[in-house]
């Protein structure tokens, strides 16, 4: 049996940065990754925020940062658009990255910090053994066990680790967005330095997006809540591409699909000898579905907490709760706000979305007060304002 201080399941950005910080803190760290290539296939639109990367202490690298983003364009069902520039706080504005390179880069950083990476290695089961967890692994037909003082589950939206360990960490279908996305060339955006978001029936329960990746290349995708529609995410995507002006001559070169947990942080993200991070913990912005930065910040906190716990020889839930406290201090209030905003958006009809877009179409957001915005909304859609009032 292999023994280690910290075992991390999943080499996405959250797992890799947890490994890096645990190793930098002096712990012996192993990461296992079930796929043969870290970062592929991607399951996201690849947006990261500049502020998030600064907080993580990671310099932007042109090897993975493909396109700097200068703003956001919100498009209502009738085509009315609202432009937001980078002078106001935009949660996902920063860069569109190439995940196939970005994720490997983060894993390499973890390796350079001293973490051992076992590729193409699947976690099959977990059992508690004294003051450790033992994970049964499978790699290239071979079964073996790894015993760890601290186990970190960074195993994505399909997470098993937390639930195997008895944490209340499941995601209900109503909180899991089904996503489908093409990477496309020959996409004709009005401005290829902004993120585009399309709302309404085009993506029931979610929204559609176009994230530029430089030149005429973009991720064109959408996410839906399955219970809100009779069609699959893929079928909605095909319809969207057929009807969106920007994609009339676009050429798909890649199809991505996957789930995105948008219900907020799951009930339990730590216990004795265990933490879960990233999508596995629901650490995703419930409004935008973006989870790279929030997952990485959680990963950094978890890695640092693990290293301290190993140093002090105490891996109890009480010690590991510091990770959850730090994440809550950093994100708790924002998460609540984003969940409310998501519910608000989901409650609006296409007509109400159009009315809101009309109210905000020519507003200079950085110069206008909240009161003036509300006055505009009262004029065009009192019903939409009433729904907003009920949520606040």
């Amino acid at each position: 049996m292999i023994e280690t201080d910290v075992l991390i399941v999943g080499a996405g950005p959250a797992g890799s940065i947890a490994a890096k910080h645990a190793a930098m803190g002096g712990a012996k760290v192993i990461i296992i990754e079930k796929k043969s290539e870290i970062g592929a296939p991607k399951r996201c639109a690849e947006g990261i925020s500049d502020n998030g990367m600064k907080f993580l202490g990671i310099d932007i690298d042109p090897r993975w940062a493909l396109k700097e983003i200068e703003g956001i364009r919100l498009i209502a069902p009738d085509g009315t658009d609202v432009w937001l520039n980078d002078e106001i706080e935009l949660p996902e504005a920063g860069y569109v990255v190439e995940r196939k390179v970005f994720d490997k880069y983060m894993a390499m950083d973890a390796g350079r910090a001293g973490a051992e990476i076992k590729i193409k290695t699947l976690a099959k089961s977990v059992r508690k053994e004294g003051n450790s967890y033992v994970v049964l692994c499978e790699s290239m037909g071979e079964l073996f066990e790894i015993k760890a003082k601290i186990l970190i589950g960074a195993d994505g939206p399909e997470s098993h680790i937390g639930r195997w360990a008895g944490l209340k960490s499941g995601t209900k279908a109503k909180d899991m967005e089904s996503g489908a996305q093409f990477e496309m060339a020959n996409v004709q955006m009005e401005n290829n330095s902004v993120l585009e978001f399309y709302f309404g029936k085009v993506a029931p329960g979610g929204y559609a997006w176009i994230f530029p990746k430089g030149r005429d290349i973009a991720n064109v995708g959408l996410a839906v809540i399955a219970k809100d529609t009779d069609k699959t995410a893929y079928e909605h995507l095909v319809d969207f591409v057929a009807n969106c002006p920007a994609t009339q001559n676009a050429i798909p070169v890649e199809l991505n699909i996957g789930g995105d947990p948008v219900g907020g942080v799951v009930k339990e993200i730590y216990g004795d000898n265990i933490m879960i991070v990233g999508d596995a913990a629901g650490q995703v912005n419930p409004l935008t579905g973006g989870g790279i930065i929030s997952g990485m910040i959680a990963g950094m906190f978890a890695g640092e907490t693990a290293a301290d716990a190993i140093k002090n020889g105490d891996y109890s839930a009480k010690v590991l709760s510091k990770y959850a406290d730090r994440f809550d201090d950093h994100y708790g209030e924002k998460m609540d706000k984003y969940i409310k905003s998501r519910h608000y958006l989901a409650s609006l009809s296409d007509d109400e979305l159009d009315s809101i877009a009309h109210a905000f179409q020519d507003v200079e957001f950085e110069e206008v007060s909240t009161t003036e915005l509300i006055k505009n909304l009262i004029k065009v859609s009192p019903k939409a304002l009433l729904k907003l009032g009920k949520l606040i």
Partner: protein
Amino acid sequence: MIVKDWCMYCGECAGVCPRNLIEVKESSLVFKDDECRECDTCVIVCPVNALEKK
């Protein structure tokens, strides 16, 4: 559960399975059919309609 050829092994089905019965490998899905209560949650959420009940 029948897994169609076009399944992309994204794992969304595994994420919402209330009984945690679906193992997602790089290019296969393994269902613990004997413990399944046929809630259909996995079938409903699949982004490409790749799952069908036997």
